[in-house]
């Protein structure tokens, strides 16, 4: 069942329609909430709130192409509300993630670790390092990279979900990716 069929089944109140919707999106929404909030209890709250809003609001949605964006807009808004309530005191400003000066002509070695490990244990470690790098990003950058790269929303969909301009999404995504690369580069240096 695609999203259009799913939406039509939900709006017609067909038995099992909402279960099929939860099967499709539930685990992704929970993982998104956990990566955004960092705490299990908060992720559960975000997941439940998003499902409740979906129960109440999905049947009114007319555009099947907008289901995923709508869902992640609701989940993002829940996550950001939680973050605002529990904002940590020490958090770097977004400006700290602006790309610094670089000169590829300067004699500074850049190690190419792009091939990645073959060994399953090393792959798991790298995966954990990346999850750690994501959790260290400020929420304004993390939410963009989660929606765009992890969840696969387009730049336009991400902008709509977060009520941001396309250029702001692109700028935040790029800064997030650079910060993640730096984190993984340090991980590879330490592992070498």
């Amino acid at each position: 069942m695609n999203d259009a069929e799913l939406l039509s089944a939900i709006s017609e109140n067909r038995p099992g329609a909402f279960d099929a919707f939860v099967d499709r999106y539930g685990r992704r929404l929970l993982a998104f909430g956990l990566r955004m909030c960092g705490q299990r209890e908060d992720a559960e709250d975000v997941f439940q709130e998003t499902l409740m809003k979906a129960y109440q609001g999905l049947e009114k949605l007319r555009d099947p192409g907008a289901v995923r964006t709508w869902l992640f807009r609701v989940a993002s808004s829940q996550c950001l509300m939680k973050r605002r309530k529990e904002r940590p005191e020490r958090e770097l400003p977004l400006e700290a993630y602006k790309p610094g000066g670089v000169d590829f002509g300067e004699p500074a070695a850049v190690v190419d670790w792009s091939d990645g490990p073959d060994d399953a244990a090393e792959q798991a470690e790298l995966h954990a390092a990346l999850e750690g790098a994501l959790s260290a990003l400020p929420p304004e950058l993390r939410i963009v990279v989660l929606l765009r790269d992890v969840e696969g929303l387009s730049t336009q969909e991400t902008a709509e979900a977060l009520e941001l301009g396309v250029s702001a999404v692109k700028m935040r995504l790029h800064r997030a990716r650079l910060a993640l690369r730096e984190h993984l580069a340090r991980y590879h240096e330490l592992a070498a």
Partner: protein
Amino acid sequence: MTTTSALAAMDPESRRRFCREVLESLSDLVEGEAPEDLCRRVDELLGDCQPFQAFRNTFAATVELTRRLGHGEALPRGFDEDIYRRCIERARRAVGE
């Protein structure tokens, strides 16, 4: 380390400015969305520059690894099926389903 002769021939300020422009456009470059003129200059000036190639490769690898996080359908660490189903039930009850 290898620096292309074209890059080395640039004055340091122009070189830094160009490298900065490339760094800021790296997402567009790896996704094939950078302007044609920039792609051409990158090929000419950084085509055989090892530090740049390593930087671009590792940047692209980071993006790919991040995308792969979204490929799995497993529950996140710390959650099991029981917790997951309980969350769904609580949401159902809250809306009177």
